């Protein structure tokens, strides 16, 4: 990776971190609804997507709600989404970022289908899907990955193993030693990486994307870390998690860790850190201003996009 790439990756991590931290505050101010915190998941999200080209597709879960930021999607779009405002609904084809998937794992077959469909058309384009450790227990995960494997589709499946599904620990989710072990059942490579090491995540994703592009089919990447924030703003983990362990995890969080690496490599100065942070904060400030300026939606939108060609009695109620 070039210096500018290393710094761009840093910029993306900071942007994601800033989005996340500002969103939690914005939620506390009562301006957005429940919000799924992704604090300390930035290395996975920025690292894995850094291996993609712009014509590759990203399939996020709610945990990767802001991942469009790495493609230049306006932060206000994502804020609007969490605010239940229609301006939060985007065109996937504009960013090659699918809609945020709320139900667990059901977007895995979508990614498989997109990747396979691109291949059938002879078009380039890799699909990268993100999901959690809990998601690997769902039938949709299994069916989607199997299908991608059988079709030799250019797909990369990134499992964010933060070791919790809300209050359910990984031991109650699987008996497998690693989630990467599941890859063998689909006849595809499975890789396990440190989910707080952005360069390790990137490297695993780069290899997977290269393999996919070269016609080698899908890869399952397990990025391991430990959830160091509540599941979402509505969640109180004190009932089920060891808060001391969480504090420990927070101490070696991923953005600071990458920052140290860049500093040690002589690539990052205090000024640069400050300016990257300021840019991200400015962006968020502007986004929040845009959100605040947006008019409340017209209730007519109930009907506008339900169908392309709506049935006449749709409005009866």
């Amino acid at each position, binding site marked *: 990776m070039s210096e500018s790439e290393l710094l761009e990756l840093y910029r993306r991590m900071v942007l994601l971190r800033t989005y996340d931290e500002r969103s939690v505050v914005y939620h506390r101010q009562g301006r957005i609804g429940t919000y799924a915190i992704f604090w300390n998941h930035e290395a996975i999200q920025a690292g894995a997507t850094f291996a993609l080209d712009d014509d590759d597709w990203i399939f996020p879960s709610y945990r990767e709600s802001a991942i469009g930021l790495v493609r230049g999607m306006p932060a206000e779009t994502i804020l609007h989404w969490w605010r239940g405002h229609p301006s939060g609904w985007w065109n996937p084809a504009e960013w090659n970022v699918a*809609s945020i998937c709320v139900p667990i794992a059901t977007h895995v077959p979508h990614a498989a*289908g997109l990747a396979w469909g691109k291949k059938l*058309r002879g078009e380039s384009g890799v699909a990268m899907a993100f999901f959690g450790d809990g998601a690997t227990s769902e039938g*949709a995960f*299994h069916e989607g990955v199997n*299908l991608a494997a059988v079709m030799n589709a250019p797909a990369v499946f990134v499992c964010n193993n933060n070791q919790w599904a809300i209050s359910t620990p990984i031991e109650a989710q699987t008996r497998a030693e690693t989630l990467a072990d599941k890859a063998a059942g689909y006849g595809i490579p499975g890789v396990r990486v440190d989910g707080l090491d952005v360069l390790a995540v990137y490297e695993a994703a780069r290899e997977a994307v290269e393999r996919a592009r070269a016609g080698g089919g899908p890869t399952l990447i397990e990025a391991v870390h430990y959830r160091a924030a509540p599941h979402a703003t509505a969640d109180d983990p004190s009932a089920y998690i060891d808060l001391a362990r969480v504090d420990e995890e927070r101490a070696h969080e991923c953005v600071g860790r990458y920052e140290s690496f860049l500093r040690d490599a002589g690539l990052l100065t205090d000024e640069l850190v400050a300016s990257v942070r300021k840019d991200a904060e400015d962006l968020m400030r502007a986004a929040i201003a845009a959100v605040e300026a947006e008019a409340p939606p017209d209730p007519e939108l109930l009907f506008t*996009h339900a169908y392309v060609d709506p049935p006449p009695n749709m409005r009866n109620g």
Partner: protein
Amino acid sequence: MAELTLVEAVNDALHTELARDDNVLVLGEDVGRAGGVFRATAGLRDRFGPDRCIDMPLAEAGMLGAAVGLCMAGWRPVVEMQYDAFSYPALDQLITHVGRYHWRTGGRMQFPITIRMPYGGGVRAPELHDDSPETYYVHASGIKVAIPSTPADAKGLLAAAIRDPDPVVIFEPKFVYRTARGEVPEGEHIVPLGRARIAREGADVTLIAYGAMVPVCERAADELAGEASCEVVDIRSLRPLDEETILASVAKTGRVVIVHEAPRTVGFGAEIAAIIAERAIFDLQGPVLRVTGFDVPYPYWTIEDSYVPSVERVAAAVRKLIA
């Protein structure tokens, strides 16, 4: 015009639409090498290649989910579910994604998926090969549903579904797959969604049905010939629903019997009855009757003829109305 069976007409529609539009592809279990367990997809793999008619792994939810992704890549997938009851694993994808994704993109992306499946009873099959699941599908917002009863409609509605910009589910009445025969227009043939068909004109009682229950109603009308003049309305399209044709018939006859195979509770007959109770109450000269499957599991086939609405049960309902 060629004389075809209903399942041949389905096959004809698929051949025609795949030839017409390179973006249409067919996927399902056993649709390729075998040409479908009812041969609805026969010849497609040979003619269009294994990338246009694809044998999928045995995973209905995965298959329908993949179809969502295929749409994002510009395809128009036609998904076969092998039998009615084997579509249930895919209901989650249908309800949470297929019917909502267009809306979710603010109307910017289309999901022109067609799902087709043989449905209904009467074929002496093991359990779970006989269900009439249309309620599960038509209740899901964002979805359209059509059910042909004749070969010409089977071709025309399927072609309309494939060309429709919204997701459409076509239920094909397997009981008459090979016994319903009729003239089918050659080449491109479209029957627009949302228009009911007056299968037979009548003055005294309106029989409302779809799928394999249309011929049952026609036979009941024959049997009642000396007693009452029955109009038979073939709904054809459950969503969009042609309320006007129904209401016009009810306005004329004042008496209604609705017939379907699905269990009664919240079957589609309930919706038709509710529409009539709202919009035609002062036209009615008697209660709105339903002749339907019972609210019990579809039975073993030695007694299925007592479950599926019969000519006798329909006739009895009519006689009750005209008594």
